[in-house]
């Protein structure tokens, strides 16, 4: 570890300031979107969650250094995300796929 100079510290301070500003903006955006007079409730929900996802990716990419992380860690996370989507998607699909009533079988 050769980086002992205060310059690195300053550079990080600037970066952190930017990240914090982004997260605060994203949060306020979320709140605003939830109060916005959007007739379709689904669109409002989608807007809020998109803002949340942006916020989260900023945190993951810059604060958790995912942006420059190793392939191995990405692989693990990619599988995790696939399984997470599988869990959420398939269980919701199952709960929505209800057998419809069919005509009774006539003998």
């Amino acid at each position: 570890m050769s980086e002992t100079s205060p310059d690195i510290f300053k550079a990080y301070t600037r970066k952190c300031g930017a990240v914090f500003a982004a997260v605060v903006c994203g949060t306020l955006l979320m709140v605003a979107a939830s109060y916005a007079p959007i007739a379709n409730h689904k669109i409002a929900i989608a807007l809020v969650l998109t803002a949340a996802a942006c916020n989260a990716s900023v945190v993951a990419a810059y604060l958790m250094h995912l942006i420059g992380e190793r392939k191995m860690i990405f692989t693990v996370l990619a599988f995790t995300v696939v399984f997470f989507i599988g869990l959420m998607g398939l269980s919701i699909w199952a709960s929505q796929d209800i057998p419809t009533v069919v005509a009774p079988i006539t003998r």
Partner: protein
Amino acid sequence: MQATSHAAHPAARQDTHHEAPGFWRSYVFSIDHKVIGIQYGLTALCFLLFGFFLMLMMRWQIAHPGEAIPLLGSFLQGLLGDVAANGIISPELYNSFGAMHGTIMVFLAIVPLAVGAYGNYLVPLQIGANDMAFPKLNMMSYQIYFLGGIIMFVSFFIPGGAAQSGWTSYPPLSMSVPTDGQTFWLIGMVFLITSSLLGSVNIITTVIQLRAPGLTWMRLPFFVWAQFTASFLLLLAFPPLEAAGVMQLMDKVAGTSFFLPTGLAVGGNLANISGGGSPLLWQHLFWFLAHPEVYVLILPAMGIISEIIANNTRKPLWGYKSLVYGALGIGFVSFLVWAHHMYLTGMGTHIATFFQTTTMIISIPSVIILTCLLMSLWGGSIRFNTPMLFALAFLPMFGIGGLTGLPLGFSVADIHLHDTYYVIGHFHYVVAPGTIFALFAGIYFWFPKLTGRYMNEYWGKIHFWTSLIFMNFVFMPMFVQGFSGMLRRMSDGAVQYSDLKVEGVTGALSSTVIGLNNFILWGAVGLGLAQIPFIINLFWSISHGEEAESDNPWNATTLDWQTPTPPPHGNFVTPPSVYRGPYEYSVPGTGRDFIPQDEPPAAR
């Protein structure tokens, strides 16, 4: 390992690694992966025996409903009180035995044995590491597992008894049974999940980070791949069950209604709950773990069998890469098949088709692995020692278990077979003569590494043949019973539905089907007796077994055998380097029929 002398380096005294640790640090709070592995192994074997005894008592009750248990009856009454009045198992007690048999066998016996014991002991040895990546977490993992086991065990003795709703704990049934045993079960599960989380993080990190120089991914023994995949399953499939466990715990203690629907009536009265919950949600979250869990049970077993087959056929495994990709394929697809346990929940046809498809797909890698192992036998000069016998028996037994699973994967066939004894027969063939045989094989195989002595061959073979025969006596008739429509979880062995009770009704179970209960009972008793030689052999051989000729008595290639016997703290005398693949047996043109992985290429 650094050689130090205390006299020369008084400052080094602070470093506890260099001092001979006392009893507590050596055997109870050890951070040595081998000691932890043995701790896991012994504890899990005790639970295995305990779970077996629960089953024996249940089998008596099934075959002889309402009759006092011979020998153990009065003991049971003294221990548990009214639920075992006159030594007869009451339906409530039968239910808690059933629930706890499943829970103990899966979560406290087989998984800790397959992953906790074998994974801990062998993975660092086989990859040439001096310990696990996080030794202290490893110790905590065992202790949390032990605590979880205690919590489960204690629940038998609380008022109301242990959990009674099956190892699946489906709400609202699990909420309606008036016992705190369910709360104990849930808290115990949270402990066990935490323990397996620590263990799996440890194994994965160890495999990724601590492989010896030269030990590339495709030079890893298949056993390590199997443990690696199984650990990933534990890592990623268990947390949703932890979430579900927390929610059911909230239902139980904080009065929430996560899994309790509106309008739920218990005992004829409307339950005092807020409602709005979904019982199916529990099933989704439970099976999201519990199906991958099946592969956690079987993958390490396949790993053990591969090592033993390669070693005792004296030739490389056939299709090493297929085995590896097969294991990884199983691991991946196993996350996407869970709802084939839920065809009967009123599931729509589209989603059912999806899960049928994935279920059929997952049988492909399983068949690939089994085929590779079978092909490995071809042309080998097979040594028929006890571990090899168990390994050879594993193949057809697991085959039966796997193939009988296919009809359960189709929703049409499953509608008839669901919740019958057919299901019990199917998964027990996978786990009992499948995984447990592999675990026995592993014990006989690695015993000389642990102790420097062989286990007795003669009694080993007696153990093998009697176990094999009685296992089939126990589980084969269950397929017949299941096809006839005999339901599982009936404390009277389905006598209520037989023509003994309802004469002349079409579809009632025949007396032959009911009579098989008695056959199974004596099969189970025989199976129990067959384990006596094993238990005696295991302990007797520690000090009296025939001494192994060398550190590598089976002439094996993998790194676990290139250590002193038993391996000291730190495992290897000098850190090993790896120069070749894991199964270089009978390489033409060499003097010996095996070349250890750490043997440098001959200078030309």
